[in-house]
């Protein structure tokens, strides 16, 4: 690219591109900056310039029982959804990569559909299912909704990991007398550690934020986004900015964590190799 950058015309063209990029970043970050700034604003959510910087909204927030109940609910839902999505999403990826069965194309489409489908369709179709089955709506129905919709995330991440995976290790493990169950847990899973952790993190965050599906499956207990939604309908105070700022801070930690994980991505093949050696040693 050295060649192109030295080209006069392109340099002038790239200046426009640079300006455009700056503008897009400003557009993407403006609401986030405003949100954080006004969480410290004594005078309410609007009004320029911000007045009376204060931590009062954070104090209100920390004394706000219903918000923390909903945070706890969301954490439980996200954890349970993560378990369901991984339990079914990892085998689904293995099935898609390694097995041939009738209806495979349909299966692939079905698994991936919730990823691109507007949440309202997933939410409503499950609402009808629970209605027909006579299931009472509660956090459990939300878990089932999130767990099902997010299988797609686990499957896509793990499927990508599988395609890079060298099957020789699994073959060696099987040849050396380990059964499929042992091979799965000691060779396949360790080799897929990164995609699995990545998927888990992503599923957790997406579930914590999810609102469109939860909207239809909610029972008596609120998740955090639905609690916020309820308050937005009643009138807004910077307390919402404060809770959003805290969520944002946690998301940032998750991103940094995820990014570190990705950077380390190269050195994961070793865990499986160790097991093959161990079996070999045992056999000898």
């Amino acid at each position, binding site marked *: 690219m050295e060649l192109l950058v030295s080209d006069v015309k392109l340099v002038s*063209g790239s200046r426009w591109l640079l300006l455009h990029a700056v503008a897009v970043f400003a557009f993407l970050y403006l*609401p986030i900056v405003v949100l954080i700034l006004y969480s410290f604003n004594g005078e309410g959510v*609007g009004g320029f310039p911000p007045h009376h910087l204060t931590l009062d909204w954070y104090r209100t927030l920390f004394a706000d029982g219903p918000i923390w109940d909903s945070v706890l609910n969301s954490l439980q839902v996200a954890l349970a959804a993560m378990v369901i999505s991984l339990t079914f999403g990892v085998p689904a990826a293995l099935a898609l990569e390694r097995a041939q069965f009738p209806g495979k194309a349909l299966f692939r489409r079905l698994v991936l559909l919730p990823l691109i489908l507007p949440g309202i369709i997933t939410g409503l179709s499950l609402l009808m299912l629970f209605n027909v089955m006579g299931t009472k709506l509660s956090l459990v129905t939300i878990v089932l909704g999130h767990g099902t919709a997010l299988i797609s995330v686990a499957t896509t991440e793990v499927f990508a990991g599988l395609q890079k995976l060298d099957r020789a290790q699994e073959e060696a493990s099987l040849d050396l007398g380990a059964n499929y169950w042992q091979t799965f847990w000691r060779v396949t899973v360790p080799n897929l550690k990164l995609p699995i952790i990545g998927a888990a993190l992503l599923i957790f965050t997406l579930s914590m934020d999810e609102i*469109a599906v939860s909207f239809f499956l909610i029972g008596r207990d609120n998740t955090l986004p639905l609690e916020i939604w309820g308050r937005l309908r009643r009138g*807004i105070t910077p307390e919402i900015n404060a809770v959003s700022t805290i969520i944002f801070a946690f998301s940032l930690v998750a991103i940094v964590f995820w990014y570190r994980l990705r950077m380390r991505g190269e050195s994961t093949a070793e865990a499986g190799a160790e097991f093959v050696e161990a079996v070999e040693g045992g056999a000898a």
Partner: protein
Amino acid sequence: MFSRAYKTAVTLPPLLWVTVFLLVPYLLMFCYSFWSVSASQTILHSWNLDNYVQLLRVDVYWQTLLRSMWIAARVTVFSLLLGYPLAYFLSFYAGKKKDLLYQLVIIPLWVSYLVRAYAWKTILGSGGVLNTLLQYVHLTKHPLEFLLYSPFAVVLTLTHIYTPFAFLPIYAALEHIPRNLVEASHDLGATPGQTFWKVIFPLSIPGVLAGATFAFVLSLGDFLAPLLLGGPSGIMISNIVVSLFGAAYNWPLGAAISLCMLLLVVSLLVFSERLEKRWSFS
């Protein structure tokens, strides 16, 4: 290398789960759409086409659907206009800062959808940040009312939310273009403009299609941004569905509209997949 038992063990559980919690619900939605509601608000399991007839007959349904598609189309175009040049800049000109800038595009995706929509509400409202800023610098005397509770607010917010979605596949497509193709084009005397339009852009079309599909489909089905920022003129088709499943209590009609959306979305996906295959060079 993998035995039959292994293949069954990895296939059967997800297959069963997906059947119960995805396939059956979609089929139920299909069934519901042919049922009806009695005057005493119970669902009658008698099969008929009334809901679909009503969809075509009552103006508000298909007009709202068209308006939603128009809003989604604008969101798609704006997301591409913002996302494409950004992806191009990052891929070809950002040099060492590429990874950092890429992360910066991703970060807003991790901020809750609801929170970002809410932030726009606090910016656009009549006592909001933008209006009070304009008055503060004496550009306007009264708050601009069209900013909030309008289709404009919905398009702006959805564009903000879906620009990173449009950006990602375009960036991936641009990153996959072999750089020696670009150099070859340059060496053979093409101007930078020619290189872009004849080499780079055609090779990035699959990414553009994927990004456009994401932005269009997801904004088409949105109901929270319209509720929060749309006002009466910004109502979208999903808002009608929500009210049919809530206060208006007509699940069968709601199911019929949802099913139309589902079919529209699936056919769009299939269509864009076909196009992507046609345009991909490998």
